[in-house]
């Protein structure tokens, strides 16, 4: 009986400590008051893993330090885990029960990471107004089985980037980038004819993940009016006239010589006219642009519709303990507040994840005055599609790319490649 009493007492004490610790973090307004009031609870120790380096890592660490200044009851440790090792390390730590409290990774990883099974539902942990302000295409990615298992912390998308110097040399107006596929083709042909350099880089090889090819191709697929998978991710949906149109566009680009097969990277070296590039390139090149480059919205077929692909990082909270989950959510709520989203976006060149910031006069003024090349990306967020939200996505992406590259290499026709890709993707889904 005595032992039981002691256990109950210990339990109550523990609960008190938890609430004491979690209390102040609930209100972001005046944390100093409550922490100095009663018994000083031990600060919640939370760890965050991310794969950023350079400016992004420095900015993130500085912001974490800022947060600590106003939130002394939470102690945050950040670790940089290289992108290529991230999932492997996460798997290992799941086995040894040493998961971080927050993992910030590529959004396509979310359904896979969710399989660990210990992700907290952020819908109940974050204030409703924070979640509802996030771009819905981004939150859709972390919505699995009715749970909000992740929230975005940064976003990017793909647009048309071009070399203004080469445009001039080819006799094109560098202030008039193409807006349709037809114009893109014509401009690229003119660049090839006048300068001998490839007019438009294409990502033509599957490599060991396929995603480079797949996620670039999806932009054109959506623009042509196609879909990648059925809405419930139960089967391939790209083997349609729209899919054929998109793939035919790529094959025509290669056959006409403006996009040499297997030569991705010419544009980035300054040896190519244009390419479909991510918004992060603006950030990478901001300090020291290698050549005079311009950005325009991704050109789409004259009878199609604007579309781009959505990328970025999402934060997931592992439910290591109630106190840690709560403290983690408190940090994320702070990170997603207007001031922080603005600061993060302006310093790193990533796109704002909340609608209020993306449309705020302050942010748009900053883009126009100091980073106008980001404007097409910001405007495109309205047309951005998310990739299918399924743990099978990495396998689907590779299976798709392995078949499509045969058409790009001239080993299969457009129809054959799409039919083979459909078969391969459906086999992956059936395999489960």
């Amino acid at each position, binding site marked *: 009986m005595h032992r039981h009493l002691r256990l109950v007492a210990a339990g109550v004490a523990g609960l008190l400590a938890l609430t004491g610790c979690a209390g102040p973090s609930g209100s972001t307004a005046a944390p100093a008051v409550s922490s100095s009031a009663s018994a000083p609870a031990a600060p919640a120790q939370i760890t965050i893993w991310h794969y950023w380096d350079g400016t992004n890592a420095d900015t993130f660490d500085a912001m974490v330090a800022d947060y600590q200044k106003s939130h002394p009851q939470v102690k945050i440790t950040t670790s940089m885990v290289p992108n290529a090792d991230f*999932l*492997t390390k*996460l*798997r290992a730590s*799941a086995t040894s029960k040493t998961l971080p409290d927050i993992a910030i990774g590529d959004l396509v990883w979310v359904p*896979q*990471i969710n*399989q*660990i*099974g210990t992700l907290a539902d952020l819908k109940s942990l974050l204030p409703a107004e924070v979640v509802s302000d996030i771009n819905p295409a981004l939150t859709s990615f972390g919505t699995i089985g009715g749970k909000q298992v992740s929230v975005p912390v940064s976003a990017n998308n793909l647009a048309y980037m071009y070399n203004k110097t080469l445009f001039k040399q080819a006799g094109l107006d560098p202030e008039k980038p193409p807006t349709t596929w037809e114009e893109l083709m014509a401009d690229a042909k003119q660049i090839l004819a006048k300068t001998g350099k490839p007019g438009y880089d294409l990502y033509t*090889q*599957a*490599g*060991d*993940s396929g995603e480079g090819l797949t996620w670039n191709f999806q932009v054109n697929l959506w623009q042509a009016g196609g879909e990648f998978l059925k809405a419930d991710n139960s089967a391939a949906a790209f083997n349609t006239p729209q899919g054929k149109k998109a793939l035919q566009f790529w094959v025509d680009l290669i056959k006409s010589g403006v996009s040499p*097969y*297997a030569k991705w990277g010419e544009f980035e070296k300054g040896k190519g006219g244009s390419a479909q590039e991510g918004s992060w390139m603006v950030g990478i090149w901001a300090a020291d642009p290698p050549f005079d480059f311009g950005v325009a919205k991704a050109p789409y077929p004259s009878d199609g519709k604007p579309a781009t692909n959505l990328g970025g990082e999402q934060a997931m909270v592992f439910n290591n303990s109630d106190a840690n989950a709560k403290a983690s959510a408190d940090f994320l709520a702070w990170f997603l507040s207007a001031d922080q989203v603005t600061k993060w976006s302006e310093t790193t060149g990533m796109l704002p994840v909340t609608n209020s910031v993306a449309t705020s006069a302050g942010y748009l003024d900053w883009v126009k005055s100091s980073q106008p090349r980001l404007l097409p990306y910001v405007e495109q967020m309205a047309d951005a599609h998310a990739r299918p939200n399924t*743990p099978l996505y*990495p*396998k689907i992406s*590779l299976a798709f790319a*392995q078949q499509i*590259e*045969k058409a790009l*290499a001239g*080993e299969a026709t457009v129809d054959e490649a799409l039919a083979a890709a459909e078969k391969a993707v459906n086999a992956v889904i059936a*395999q489960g």
Partner: protein
Amino acid sequence: MAQAQLVIRSGETPPSGSPRSPRRRRYDREQVITAAVFLAPALVVLAVFVFYPILAAGQISLTSWNGFDPVQPFVGLGNYQRLAQDPEFWNSLAVTVGYALGVCVLSVVSGLAIALLLDAPLRGLGIYRSIYFLPVVTSSVAAAIVWRYLLDPSGLVNSVLAQFGIAGPDWLQDRYLALGALTLLTVWKNIGFNAVLYLTALQALPHSIYEAAGLDGASGWQKLRHLTIPLLSPMTFFVVVQALITSFQAFDLVYVFTEGGPRGGTDVLGMFMYRTAFRLGDFGYGTAIAFVTLALVLGVTLVQWRVTGSDGTER
């Protein structure tokens, strides 16, 4: 390589108790205890870091584990059945076998040729030996990157060909050319090592036999054909086994050089396994590939053993 050395050594001195040793020694209890005490630490380390992981991997290969789910769904031999029907696996196996054969033949020929040259009385021999050994100590990643630049459509190789009016192909975009290039790269990388092996064996050959052959009027070619090559066969066996193991385990060179491309043309088993397990998170299937690779290497080595005899002399 360590494995191959082990193989050779155990072959040279047959373990006591085997039919080859005439008398079986009796060990007294004290000796057994002493041996056990000395062996125990090594056995514990081996058990924890070698045997247990192999067994654990064997167990994972019977599941469809995705690396994340705490549950490892048991599928029995399902992964192995899936392998048998997977065109990617058969492609990978064909590529690996072709690559391994190429590497074996070329390693023996090039290693022996260079060793014979280096064995000759030459001025500045040390310099030549260092030059041939340089690729061995160069990192695989650096070597692969340099070769990739050399074979670029506008790289050095095609520029030189252009001087002679030949339009060079896009080497790494044709599956057979790419596999050939990978084989040459691997052989080139290890040429110095194989040459050193042959050189050691050459210098250990008894002079008296050559003198006797010389008295009988044998020409240099006859000496090479009938004396040197047969006498070197234990070393040839070692070079072949080592080349086989290297090519069945190939990964780093391939990963940097071609990533398994073009369109699966250089997709060796190591690459296939890495992609399956670590890129696609299909750990059960990935470990099954690893086990099949292990079985293949073991099998090939055993067959060779039967054919040539464990000490390399033909039976």
